[in-house]
């Protein structure tokens, strides 16, 4: 910000002051600016993914809407609230660190970590659900279900409150769920079929984009749905979903590591009104991760959900 003034006559070394700085003000300014620049690079890091999302969504809006509708928006919303609470406890941690209140700091850091863990737990639950239903976009990483085998023989996790779907237990009328090689499976074509039919009836309508009319059809312009081609586009949605939420979860895990260190420091009573910048910097990181989720939630879980009104 400014050229700093310093006097070499009276060098007063405060505790926690590193050798290259003249005073605590300069140190805090440097550290805080460094953290913000790091966050700026984080914005660009996630920004690359958001660009990929933007381009792919603009190419295949209906496939993304179908994929979005399949995610559990309730769990996503719950996770958003969990993160918001953890952001509040983090903000209060900084508040109490400035006051030098050790017990409140320790308690609030523990709470923040608990909410962070809750978030990861819910995320893990969601991932497992995707695994069980063949929605992980990489072949071989889904639960393997052989034709006509009883549920108990299936490899992999079955979530509480859910029975493993086997070929013999499938809903009447639906095709049995078989996935012997653990490949990506997609079974919901009602929405795109509906739009395709309308587009065929009204060739000048805007039910599908021009690109979609070409890329979902059996042959360009035929407006007859090719399920395999559509499935590939939904797979791209789930790929982006997993990369974005996975990278976000990785940031959460790193955040929990930082919190563990912070907890130890706070427990030792390191922070007070004079020296609390580690708490503040960790807080910035934690809030940033929260902000990323604030955008991921609507983009991945919510957009396209209004198609549910079609009752398909």
């Amino acid at each position: 910000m400014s050229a700093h003034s310093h006097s070499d006559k009276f060098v007063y070394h405060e505790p926690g002051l590193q050798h290259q700085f003249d005073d605590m003000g300069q140190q805090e300014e440097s550290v805080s600016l460094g953290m913000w620049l790091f966050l700026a690079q984080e914005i660009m890091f996630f920004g690359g993914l958001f660009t990929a999302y933007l381009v792919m969504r603009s190419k295949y809006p209906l496939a993304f809407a179908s994929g979005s509708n399949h995610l559990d928006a309730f769990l996503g919303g719950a996770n958003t609230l969990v993160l918001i609470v953890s952001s509040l406890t983090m903000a209060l941690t900084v508040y109490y660190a400035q006051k030098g209140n050790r017990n409140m700091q320790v308690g609030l850091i523990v709470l923040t970590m608990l909410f962070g863990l809750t978030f990861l737990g819910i995320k893990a639950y969601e991932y497992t659900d995707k695994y069980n239903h063949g929605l992980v976009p990489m072949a071989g990483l889904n639960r393997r279900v052989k034709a006509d085998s009883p549920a108990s023989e299936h490899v992999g996790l079955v979530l509480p409150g859910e029975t493993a779907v086997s070929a013999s237990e499938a809903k009447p009328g639906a095709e049995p769920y078989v996935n012997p090689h653990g490949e990506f499976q997609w079974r919901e074509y009602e929405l795109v079929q509906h739009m395709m039919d309308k587009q065929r009836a009204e060739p000048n309508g805007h039910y599908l984009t021009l690109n979609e009319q070409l890329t979902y059809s059996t042959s360009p312009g035929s407006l007859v749905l090719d399920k395999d081609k559509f499935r590939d586009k939904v797979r791209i949605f789930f790929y982006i979903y997993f990369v974005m939420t996975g990278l976000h979860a990785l940031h959460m895990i790193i955040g929990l590591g930082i919190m563990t260190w912070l907890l130890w420091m706070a427990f030792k009573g390191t922070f007070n009104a004079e020296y609390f910048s580690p708490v503040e910097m960790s807080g910035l990181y934690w809030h940033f991760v929260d902000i990323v989720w604030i955008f991921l939630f609507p983009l991945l879980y919510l957009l396209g959900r209004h198609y549910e009104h079609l009752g398909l």
Partner: protein
Amino acid sequence: METVGAIEAGSYGTAKLNYLNNGSTLKSWLLTKDHKRIAIMYLISVSAFFLMGGLYAAAIRLELLTPASDLFETGTYNKVFTQHGILMVFFFLIPSIPAVLGNFLIPIMIGAKDLALPRINLLSLYIYWIGGAITLWALMQGGVDTGWTFYTPYSTTFSNTYVLAVGVGIFINGFSSILTGVNFLVTIHTMRAPGMTWFRLPLFVWSHYAVSLIFVLGTPVVAITLLLVAIERVAHVGIFDPALGGDPILFQHMFWFYSHPAVYIMVLPGMGIVSELLANFARKRIFGYEFVAFSSIGIAVFGFLVWGHHMFVSGQSMYASLVFSFLTMVVAIPSAIKMFNWTATLYQGSISFDTPMLYGLAFMGLFLIGGFTGLYLGALGLDVHLTDTYFVIGHFHYVMVGGQVIAYLGGLHYWWPKMTGKMYSEFWGRVAAMLIFVGFNLTFFPQLILGYLGMPRRYAAYPPEFQVLNIFSTAGASVLGVGLTMPLFYFLHSLVKGKPAPDNPWLLPGLEWRTSSPPPTENFDTPPVVTWEIYDFGDESGLDLEAAKREAATINA
């Protein structure tokens, strides 16, 4: 890292405690937080990568001596030029000036004791080593053949080489650049000495400020892009593979969003050095200081708006091509401002032709050609003819080698006495500079002609009518190789037998010349207070030139 104690005036060289002799154990180097020691370790690592990349370049030129692909199989040739590109771009050109000279000089030039975040600085060196080690391992396992650009879907689907490992290596290496950029920005903002206002900063510092902006805002994007390529290779899901519904042009957008600004990473620091060299060796305040300073920032900002000119023939919309072509012409303006100002600086200056200045002048000529050929390529119609020909190779080597490498060598010669406390042989320095200049032009000017005639890049074989110019090019490469090897020898020789350098060998007013050679660990015995304007060669600079001359004479005697 204790503060250096009071030193008697008039003692030189090894007698004085400086950053080099302040601790000699391996640990005192590997765990140092001193920006100068980190810079020296960067210098050694970067030179090693330059040597390796240079050997690949020699292999390419040998293969192209004859029209047939007789030295290598075509597949091997693909690997050779890819690895030349990867080593040179990611592990030499990008870190060369910022991580070595920038690291060493920025704190000294602004009058600080160290960078603002010394531990982050050390971390960035280790990240660079880890990324480099992974890449080298992959190269030894069999290498990679995608070209340094990793274009999809070849890199994600078809290539059978070590794309994943090299991608991971470069991904990791990217964070080294990011941390360096963050560190420089913070340091320039918060660590300036009293009186060191923004417009008293050396232009070297301004250009590093601009480069750091690109590091921080661009590098993460290429990191995430390579991560997506790596995942796509493993998982076979494609946002980049058209067969799976993806879009290869999306990869190109994301890749060039960083990699075009990265081209400016590879020339802006060089421009900073050349601004120093021209002003100081013409002993004249640089013409239009503010314009040169802000043109660096202008290049950094506009550099982010032109990436689409790499994609004119790859399926980008015609509208986007028009916009990008126009903006490419716009980004030439700040570069031209620099050229005009440098020329005006030389006018009526008292120029001395020491070795660093020879490099400075060489830069001006070579960058002029590099810049103008860039305008040819940015012109939408002409680019269709020139895309993927040797004209492109010639163009960017004129900028990268003629710009950055020449400037890097100039800077290395200029600050070598400060960094090591030793003088190199001026005679051999000039000989090497001349050889490099002649060899460089002989290598790359024929390539511009070859490309214009239609010789495509990235092929091991070519029609026989191109052979004469290719022989010129290979002959030039040999001269260039000899020229580039010479500094290695006389620099090493100077370390052992060189004369001790005075504190101010070039008799200049800059802050780095007001501390001892080599500097103490905390850079200055007493923290400096700046009261003079930058590039002020008159009496107001407060520099006792007579004393500096006497000191130099004592050493020479």
